[in-house]
């Protein structure tokens, strides 16, 4: 049977992703100019901004898939798989966002962490999804797990904006504004902007590729169970034959 999760579509996505990523790397390191103020450390931006974008894209994808999972009774598990795959990949990108953001801050300002709203909200997003994945790991009926996870993902849609809003209000008390935001004062010329944009495209393709594969892997695992149902029913009935009461 079908043990590979690759198809023509994913191969095409994969190749394009590789090519665009190669271009971004070359451009980021060798072609674009260094920043007047930050020097070469500005090049982290080409990794940090796209990963942040993907982190939030993953969050939205999981939320939408979870919504459909709850609403569509018949395709519950299919949508749930997408939600789960997106969350797994998303957590990875959230971690990368935090790491690149932290490194950038360190190189630019000498500190590993600032409590600015964007980084803090991403931190909460990360922790929330770690919790979400922990709930998914619990053994149990797949439908119950799907429902439980979907509710949590949808609650996160309420939670994250509230967190962001509160943190913005909170930090405004300290009158730091955008001083500590490394990308606040970077002047982006045409080429830098284009490289940044390419980075976003490349990472989006990588995200899609990873999620599609992961989701298919999950589907294969579930398929083993469903396809066997008829056989299982026969086997189950056979438990009765030969020992029927007389």
């Amino acid at each position, binding site marked *: 049977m079908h043990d590979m999760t690759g198809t023509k579509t994913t191969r095409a996505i994969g190749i394009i992703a590789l090519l665009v990523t190669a271009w971004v790397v070359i451009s980021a390191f060798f072609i674009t100019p260094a920043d007047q103020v930050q020097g070469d450390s500005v090049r982290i931006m080409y990794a940090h901004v796209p990963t942040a974008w993907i982190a939030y894209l993953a969050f939205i994808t999981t939320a939408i898939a979870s919504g459909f999972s709850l609403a569509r009774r018949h395709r519950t598990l299919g949508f749930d798989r997408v939600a789960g795959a997106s969350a797994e990949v998303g957590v990875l990108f959230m971690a990368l966002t935090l790491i690149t953001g932290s490194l950038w801050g360190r190189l630019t300002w000498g500190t590993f962490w600032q409590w600015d709203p964007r980084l803090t909200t991403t931190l909460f997003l990360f922790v929330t999804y770690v919790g979400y994945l922990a709930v998914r790991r619990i053994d149990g009926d797949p439908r119950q797990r799907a429902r439980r996870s979907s509710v949590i993902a*949808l609650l996160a849609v309420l939670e994250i904006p509230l967190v962001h809003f509160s943190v913005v209000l909170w930090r405004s008390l300290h009158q730091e504004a955008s001083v500590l935001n490394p990308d606040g004062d970077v002047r982006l010329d045409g080429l830098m902007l284009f490289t940044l944009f390419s980075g976003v495209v490349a990472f989006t393709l990588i995200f899609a590729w990873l999620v599609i594969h992961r989701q298919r892997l999950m589907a294969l695992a579930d398929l083993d169970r469903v396809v066997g149902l008829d056989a299982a029913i026969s086997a189950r009935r056979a438990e009765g034959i030969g020992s029927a009461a007389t």
Partner: protein
Amino acid sequence: MNVIAVIAKKDLLIEWRTRTLMARVVPFALLVLVMFAVALDSEPLLLRAAAGLVWLALLFSTMLVVQRSFDVETQDGVLDTLLACANPSRVFFGKATALFVQLFALGVVLVVGAVVLYGVAISGDRVVLLVTVVVSATGGLAVVGTLYGAVVANLIGRDSLLPLLVLPVLAPLLIAASRSTEAAFGSNTIDVANGWAWVGVLVVYAVVFGSAGALAFAPLTESDA
């Protein structure tokens, strides 16, 4: 009789019988306040941080009270009967109401604790603000606690899972409650007007999660196995 009131009374009756809150959680909460003092070792710092510490202590205590609230239901499988006899959203509000009463009592104890242990002085004109903060923040705690308590009820290893799920969700509440309580305790950075603004955030929070909880309780408590 109103179903929500029936459920809330039942929870409070059980609490009264077993004295879990009074005998265990209150001492724990006060102990946390004491531990903060031991760890921070600076009276001016404690006084400045008093508002935040009170809410932290209440947050941690909430974990215990929520676990207990649902252990009572899952121990003998009573939750099934409860859901067979009452609408899930009513069960949600019933349990949240009982939780609110318990947490409010705990909140009062903690504020008194801060006054006694940290030297907080509350002037007469700020009492109204303080009471409003405690009521609205406790409301938010109660609905979020009940909601996530239901998510992890019946799960093995739920003791470690509940805090991981709930604390990020409670972050906005912690921020808003701490800031407005600072104003009520008389801080230099936040005046009373700002304090009331934060109360607005608390009310919105409680309403948002109260509604979300009422809606989410039905899918959460459906049975598939």
